[in-house]
């Protein structure tokens, strides 16, 4: 019996020939990515344990992306503590304010996430990097185990395979597909499993699109998402780094708990309604919900593919007078490329505010909502209070849907704008 890509990566990193589903293995990640909000607590933990330095300063990466720029003395002191720690321990890759962006985008851009890797991060959306053929796991505070011993425990997961065929209608994106899949599965439909995305539609997807797919799988309870690396993956990674990598793929006779078929030919744009990320309907059923705020960004959908479609829709237009719109490129590189392509000018002229690459509104740090306000966003989660008041409402959708909704002042089918 063959192995899934997940089993192969876990076997390799736990020095075993084979692993069994349900087994607990001690495995060694290839890199461990840390963001700013957890890190001061991690430093305290390392002091409590009595450890000097980190396991491997070339494999521990630190990115400031959540609370940037610092908006209070507390946060500024927090950042200062982290900078001092990075200097003391010789951590090689530190992406300070202005030098990077959202970690999950950055790790792809900088070539740190490569096929065949066991990739871990403290933040929930580490799973995004499964798009590059890594087994990407969110550890939370357990990352302390990796920073000290270079390893931690993993429960070997089962996998669900998704065979995706068909071409997207104009204005329909990979975001709509993953929202539909999450809606179909429900909050524990993929509990503790890996969602492995396959089929010609995935093959045709950009890396941006694949990252959007993997980013949302936790909403269905999945451990992570993964895409077997293909030539597109290899070309992307080779453009960004000279570091080596292993192209591991699922065997043809690997075992899956389910094989689910999706045909996107007739897929309509999807909207996720409050108060949960699994409450997913076609945009056709949600049109005419009036909005106060529109937001394009986050590690889910703040990439070139998203900004390009938004610019195409917003070009020469003004957003609705009631609406304020934030567009947040997910990294400095995305921001620069968007500038070069003239997208930033289009956004500014539409009356959208283009903001610093960071997590920002997604986690409620700024661009917050008052009671009874409604936001349509490309963020990752729509639970009450996520973006401000517990009495505000968040609808999740693709960049295309958010852009068209911003113009109309209500949730709107983007296909009419294409």
């Amino acid at each position, binding site marked *: 019996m063959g192995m899934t890509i997940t089993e192969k990566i876990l076997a390799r990193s736990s020095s075993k020939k084979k692993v069994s589903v349900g087994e*607990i293995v*001690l495995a060694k990640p290839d890199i461990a990515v840390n963001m700013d*909000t957890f890190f001061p*607590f991690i430093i305290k*933990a390392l002091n*409590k*344990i*009595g*450890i000097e330095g980190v396991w491997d300063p070339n494999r521990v990466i630190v990115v400031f992306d959540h609370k940037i720029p610092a908006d209070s003395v507390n946060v500024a002191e927090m950042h200062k503590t982290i900078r001092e720690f990075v200097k003391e321990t010789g951590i090689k890759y530190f992406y300070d304010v202005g030098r990077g962006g959202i970690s999950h985008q950055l790790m792809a851009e900088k070539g740190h996430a490569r096929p065949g890797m066991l990739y871990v991060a*403290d*933040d*929930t959306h580490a799973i995004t990097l499964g798009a590059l053929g890594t087994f990407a796991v*969110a*550890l*939370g*505070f*357990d990352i*302390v*185990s990796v920073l*000290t*011993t270079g*390893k931690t*425990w993993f*429960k070997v997961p089962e996998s669900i395979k998704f065979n995706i065929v068909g071409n997207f209608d104009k204005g329909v994106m990979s975001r709509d597909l993953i929202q539909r899949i999450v809606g179909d599965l429900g*909050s*524990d439909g993929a*509990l*503790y499993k890996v969602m492995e995305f396959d089929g010609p539609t995935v093959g045709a997807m950009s890396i941006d699109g694949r990252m959007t797919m993997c980013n949302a799988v*936790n909403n269905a*309870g999945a*451990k992570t998402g993964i895409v077997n690396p293909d030539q597109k993956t290899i070309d992307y990674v080779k453009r960004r780094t000279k570091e080596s990598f292993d192209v591991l793929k699922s065997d043809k006779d690997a075992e899956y708990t389910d094989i689910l078929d999706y045909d996107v030919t007739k897929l309509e744009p999807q909207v996720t309604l409050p108060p949960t990320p699994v409450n997913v309907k076609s945009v056709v059923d949600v049109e005419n919900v009036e909005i106060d705020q529109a937001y394009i960004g986050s590690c889910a959908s703040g990439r070139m593919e998203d900004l390009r479609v938004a610019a195409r829709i917003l070009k020469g237009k003004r957003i609705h007078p009631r609406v304020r719109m934030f567009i947040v490129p997910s990294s400095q590189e995305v921001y620069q490329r968007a500038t070069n392509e003239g997208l930033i000018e289009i956004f500014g002229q539409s009356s959208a505010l283009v903001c610093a690459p960071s997590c920002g509104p997604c986690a*409620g740090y700024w661009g917050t909502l008052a009671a009874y306000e409604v936001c349509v966003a490309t963020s990752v*989660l729509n*639970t*009450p*209070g*996520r973006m401000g008041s*517990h009495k505000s409402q968040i609808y999740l959708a693709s960049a295309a849907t958010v852009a068209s909704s911003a113009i109309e002042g209500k949730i709107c089918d983007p296909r009419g704008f294409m």
Partner: protein
Amino acid sequence: MKWIMKGKVWKFGDNVESESIITMDIVRLHPTDPKYLAKYCMVTIDPDFPKKVNKGDFIVAGRNFGCGHGLHWEGPLAIKGVGISALIVESVARDFFRTAITFGLPILLSRGIMEKVNQGDELEIDLTKGKITNLSSGETIEADSLPDYLVRIVKAGGLIDFLKEEKGSPLF
């Protein structure tokens, strides 16, 4: 290694969200004191829960316990702070499970537990054997035993204490 606990059941339903255990407005303050967090534990579901729980009690819940943003340590710390010594659930969200283990809160998985246990029942649980005895009904219930490596982490009191103990061992 033997590890047996006895306590009273506090029963909850399916899909208890991490954000219901401790809400986001408190999480954003990043508190780390279990006694502080205990005051807010589960109050959006049961406002009097912190006052009613006794040290050593259990939470029994249905599917997908801790779903949503399970990597926030505030949830498991609040549950420990309020006196709960273990969770017995139908199934658990993976992020919450890892966070619970990391902060020394044991979780047993037991399919069908919701039908076999009532609010207020007294249970005796054996974490290393995966056995639950419902002392109120007399029934013996099967559970998945907690894997050895995770037992070691939880028994030490959580990851930090575990790693302190293991310093100098081959683990490092």
